[in-house]
């Protein structure tokens, strides 16, 4: 059992060496200068037996504070929504569960069809004409949207509301560095876009105004007003939205958004300590030829039968790569499939119920928590399933004290915004029970007393 975890045996290795005419593996490495090589074996512990290894890994995993064993009020872009059990069964089917997404129409009608259904559902939810097959995550979707707005308008500035997830803003800055797109921030003193400040920044040079709703602080933005502001200057409006909320909240497309992007993790994709996630990307028809990534379309074959194919990507990926405005050539098909199964399972009413429950429980939690002395809502603006609390004790202290009771109380905002050093971002999904919320309030009461 020397090669317990390596697929080929020593006999097979000897055979391969004999076939290519080498005496040993060492023979294959003689061209590498000795000083570039390690002269001793790697300092690895001896291989464990499988039972010992599983025990070891389980012990390691048990040191994690995961949402199965902790009551999770963490959010900030990744949410503890329920993942219905059929999802895992569906994605585990061999036809879907491959390391690489097969796109050949003659061999992959099933895969292409699920992607087409995913696109259709996302387009409906966001109120857009067309959605792509997905991108890596919400942050890269937003960055691609900024590039697309720049290409479509030939303008060099992008105006971002401060309420856009700060991690997303950093990814946007990375993507925009190459083309030299200038980013301009609009403050959010009340937790939402300062419209007067935005009006001064959005002008003839603006490719797009970007708002997130509910934004990073949990507050709901006035998307229609932002659309009016952007369009008056000939700019596009990009809205970052969480599709799980769109069973309740109005589709951004119906409020004037030109591009809707977001993190689709909440649609049946486990939090998995931050990834893989699901980048949602949808746009109006006028922009269809500039949409990055894969796009599945429906067509008819030579016999007139309905079929699915990749479409509209002649420029970006195959014929004119030198002129492409995006170089993303992949999607997260398995996560998109999780979302497709999730949306199909829940249906319109189910998704609406998830949104209603999350919002109602979040408001109940805010009510209970702000009864405690010194605990207040940081912003006066309306929120949905997430809100920013100002605490009388350091949020880091609150975190560690509540973690002892197996409660993850939220995300301290200090690393994201120094002016919010006394704030904790609390998310509440449909999974939280009244008992859990009351226990959170009771535990917090002990810390702030």
């Amino acid at each position: 059992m020397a090669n317990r975890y390596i697929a080929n045996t020593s006999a097979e290795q000897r055979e391969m060496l004999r076939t290519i005419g080498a005496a040993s593996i060492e023979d294959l490495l003689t061209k590498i200068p000795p000083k570039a090589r390690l002269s001793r074996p790697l300092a690895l512990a001896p291989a464990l037996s499988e039972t010992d290894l599983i025990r070891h890994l389980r012990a390691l995993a048990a040191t994690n504070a995961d949402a199965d064993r902790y009551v999770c009020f963490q959010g900030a872009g990744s949410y503890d929504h329920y993942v219905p059990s059929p999802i895992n069964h569906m994605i585990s089917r061999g036809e879907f569960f491959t390391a690489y997404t097969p796109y050949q129409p003659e061999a992959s009608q099933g895969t292409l069809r699920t992607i087409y259904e995913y696109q259709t559902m996302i387009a409906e939810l966001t109120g857009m004409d067309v959605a792509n097959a997905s991108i890596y995550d919400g942050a890269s979707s937003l960055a691609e949207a900024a590039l697309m707005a720049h290409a479509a308008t030939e303008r060099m500035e992008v105006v971002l509301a401060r309420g856009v997830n700060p991690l997303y803003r950093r990814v946007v800055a990375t993507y925009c560095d190459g083309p030299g797109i200038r980013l301009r921030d609009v403050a959010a003193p009340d937790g939402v876009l300062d419209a007067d400040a935005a009006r001064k920044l959005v002008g003839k040079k603006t490719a797009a105004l970007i708002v997130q709703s509910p934004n990073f602080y949990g507050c709901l933005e006035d998307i229609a007003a932002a659309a009016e502001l952007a369009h008056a200057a000939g700019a596009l409006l990009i809205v970052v939205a969480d599709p799980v909320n769109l069973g309740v909240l109005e589709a951004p497309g119906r409020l004037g958004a030109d591009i809707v992007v977001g993190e689709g993790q909440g649609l049946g994709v486990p939090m998995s300590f931050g990834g893989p996630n699901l980048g949602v990307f949808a746009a109006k028809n006028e922009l269809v030829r500039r949409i990055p990534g894969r796009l599945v379309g429906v067509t008819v074959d030579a016999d007139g039968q309905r079929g699915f194919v990749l479409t509209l990507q002649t420029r970006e990926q195959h014929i004119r790569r030198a002129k492409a405005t995006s170089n993303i050539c992949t999607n997260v098909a398995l996560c998109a499939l999780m979302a497709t199964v999730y949306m199909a399972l829940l249906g319109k009413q189910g998704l609406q119920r998830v949104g209603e429950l999350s919002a109602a429980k979040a408001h109940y939690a805010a009510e209970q928590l702000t009864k405690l002395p010194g605990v207040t809502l940081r912003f006066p603006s309306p929120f949905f399933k997430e809100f920013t609390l100002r605490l009388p004790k350091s949020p880091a202290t609150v975190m560690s004290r509540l973690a002892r009771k197996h409660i993850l109380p939220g995300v301290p905002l200090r690393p994201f915004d120094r002016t919010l050093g006394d704030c904790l971002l609390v998310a509440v999904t449909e999974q939280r029970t009244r008992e859990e919320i009351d226990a959170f309030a009771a535990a917090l009461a002990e810390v702030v007393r």
Partner: protein
Amino acid sequence: MANVPGDLKYTREHEWAKREGDRVRVGITHFAQEQLGDVVFVELPKVGAKVTAHQAFGVVESVKAVSDLFAPISGEIVEANAELPQKPETVNKDPYGKGWMILVKPSNAAELDQLLTARQYEEFVAQGGH
């Protein structure tokens, strides 16, 4: 074979140019649309944009390929054919008429003289057009 009107000037990239007073109208040739096949999308510059002779001013996409459109002459766009985005097939049906693409106010009208005549373009196409 080729449909090459005698009163137009031509580029080696298969655009035609037609002087109309102090403006120059531009489109692609019958040969070009035939080679491309069914045109499904045309992307044209905005009014007021500057174009430069021999440089790309737009894109034409057919069922077979996506190709750049090259300006026969330098100048400013005074009009772009607003019908093409909705009816790209017009380029196939009437390349020298309703399928025109841009109207340019030239910055140097003498550039027109450097373009191919109808006869030169016919010869160029007869040799393969590359």
